[in-house]
């Protein structure tokens, strides 16, 4: 008896090879030119011509590449979860205001530190403080959107509610900004541009740890996610505990989006655009295939965006957020203009 579910083995092998190539390209690009051979030498701890090269690669470029991989996959998986849960092709962590919620958490910490008293100020400038504030912010906004989604069945209304929550949090941030000092404001502004660099190995472990927790939750809901493709009533009739699935999605999306936003700033469009690109490439709705595919594609695209933002061989670096928007916005427009149906 034939099992006609396609295995997509070759496509996956191709994707992984692309990922490895892009990682190497990404690490070899930057304001300082370093020959490829020296890059490999520094990885295997061999004799590198200049000690500074080794330091640049191991302490700056490699951490940045790892951050890009985590940020890209994490945001893309969050986007996929949102699109399946809300049955809406335009859902994503940024559109639904979840990234804004995370930003609000960080803004309260940075900008509102003076209101909140000295006790919090101590934690305010550590990245762990940012992460926890961002995760709580993301969790609160996403819970609010989900509660609204139970009442409002119309998927378009849910999208508008998400956008409204986004503007609400933006407004609160503006008010906070109005009352803060120039110093705090500058700090917040730089954070909000987004940056994949500047993470110490310690911070990367913290980010990876949260990422892995978020991902491991998702692995256990692959099966219910597939039945949710038929709608909640069918899912329930097939024995799916829809409420529990919804809660797991809530937790893992908040963890992923929250931690990523805290460490790298609010990054737009990746969560929305990558799942669509992946679905175009794989032409399937099966989450068993989509989840790993989206994770790898997200990593690849984030690395490409980062390589572009480095402006190779120049000393300037563009804000990563600008690059992802430049890349993501046209894709969304193209998706909507195209005649073919958009699936989630």
């Amino acid at each position: 008896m034939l099992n006609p579910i396609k295995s997509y083995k070759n496509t996956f092998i191709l994707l992984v090879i692309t990922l490895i190539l892009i990682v190497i390209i990404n690490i070899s690009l930057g304001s300082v030119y370093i020959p490829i051979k020296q890059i490999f030498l520094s990885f295997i701890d061999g004799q590198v011509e200049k000690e500074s090269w080794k330091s640049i690669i191991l302490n700056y470029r490699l951490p940045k590449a790892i951050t890009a991989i985590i940020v890209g996959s994490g945001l893309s998986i969050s986007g996929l979860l949102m699109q399946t849960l809300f049955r809406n092709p335009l859902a994503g962590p940024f559109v639904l205001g979840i990234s804004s919620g995370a930003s609000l958490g960080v803004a309260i910490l940075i900008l509102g530190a003076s209101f909140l008293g000295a006790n919090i100020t101590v934690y305010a400038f550590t990245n762990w403080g940012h992460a926890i504030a961002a995760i709580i912010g993301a969790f609160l906004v996403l819970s609010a959107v989900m509660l609204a989604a139970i009442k409002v069945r119309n998927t378009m209304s849910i999208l508008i509610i998400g956008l409204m929550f986004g503007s609400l949090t933006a407004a609160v941030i503006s008010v906070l900004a109005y009352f803060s000092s120039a110093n705090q404001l500058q700090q917040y502004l730089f954070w909000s541009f987004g940056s994949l660099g500047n993470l110490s190995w310690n911070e990367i472990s913290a980010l990876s740890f949260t990422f892995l927790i978020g991902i491991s939750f998702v692995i256990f809901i692959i099966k219910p996610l597939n039945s949710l493709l038929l709608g909640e009533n069918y899912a329930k009739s097939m024995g799916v505990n829809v409420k529990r699935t919804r809660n797991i999605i809530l937790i893992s999306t908040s963890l992923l989006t929250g931690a990523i936003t805290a460490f790298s700033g609010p990054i737009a469009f990746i969560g929305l655009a990558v799942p669509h690109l992946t679905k175009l490439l794989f032409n399937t709705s099966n989450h068993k295939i989509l989840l790993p595919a989206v994770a790898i594609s997200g990593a690849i695209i984030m690395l490409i965006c980062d390589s572009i933002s480095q402006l190779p061989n120049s000393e300037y670096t563009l804000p990563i957020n600008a690059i992802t928007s430049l890349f993501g916005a046209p894709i969304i427009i193209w998706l909507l203009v195209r005649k073919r149906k958009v699936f989630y």
Partner: protein
Amino acid sequence: MKLSTKHIIKATNLSIGYTSKKEVKTIASNLNIDLNAGNLVCLLGKNGIGKSTLLRTLTKVQPSLEGEIFINSNNLEKLNYKGFSKMVSLVLTERLPDNSLTVFELVALGRQPYTNWIGYLTTEDLQIIDDAFEKTATKHLINSKCYELSDGQLQKVLVARALTQNTPIIVLDEPTAHLDIHHTIETFTLLKKLAKNFNKTVIVSTHEINLALQLADELWLMTPTQFVSGKTDTLISNNSVQQLFDSNLISFNKTLKQFTINNS
């Protein structure tokens, strides 16, 4: 799977409707159901009389206002979703959300109550899926995408999905609403076959009264005043079917077994 032919569904003094914060809205009350396995049941009634509400109550989508429902001697309220999914499978009237599942993937989803945490299909699962395609004559469609199917094909595939769930009861809410006469008859014959040859209990809400009177083993009739259930022939002879449409425009002709327009 051979089932005892007794009381697959039993409900006494059932009251159905909606509860909101402000009020309790009763749609129908005093419903008594006592159904044996292996029957094709057609639920008939005017638009808005509460057919869907009754089906939603019987399938655990909404709670009953009063009275208990027993499915295969299990109290419906105490059955969890997992247990329920092995008793009753559904074909809903709502449109499927857009997705790019293949027909095989859609039908295979019916095995979810039985598969492991990742949804791995064993040889036994594949055999049951294959069997469902066989029974519904949809094997040629397995590699198509669901959005490519016609309404008639989709309906048969949805029945196949319900079959893979391997439940003694299948509930269908207006399965032929968008179908032409050819596909309507095809669907009803399929359902009749499932009840007769495979001892399934099939409950269908429908407006196809003529077909229902010819094929159904039992009828559930919903009128504004009462709920009547019984063998099709009995309900025809004791004038219960006549009560379905309280109108001077049409009346029921017992010899033709169909409603005819009154000559005025």
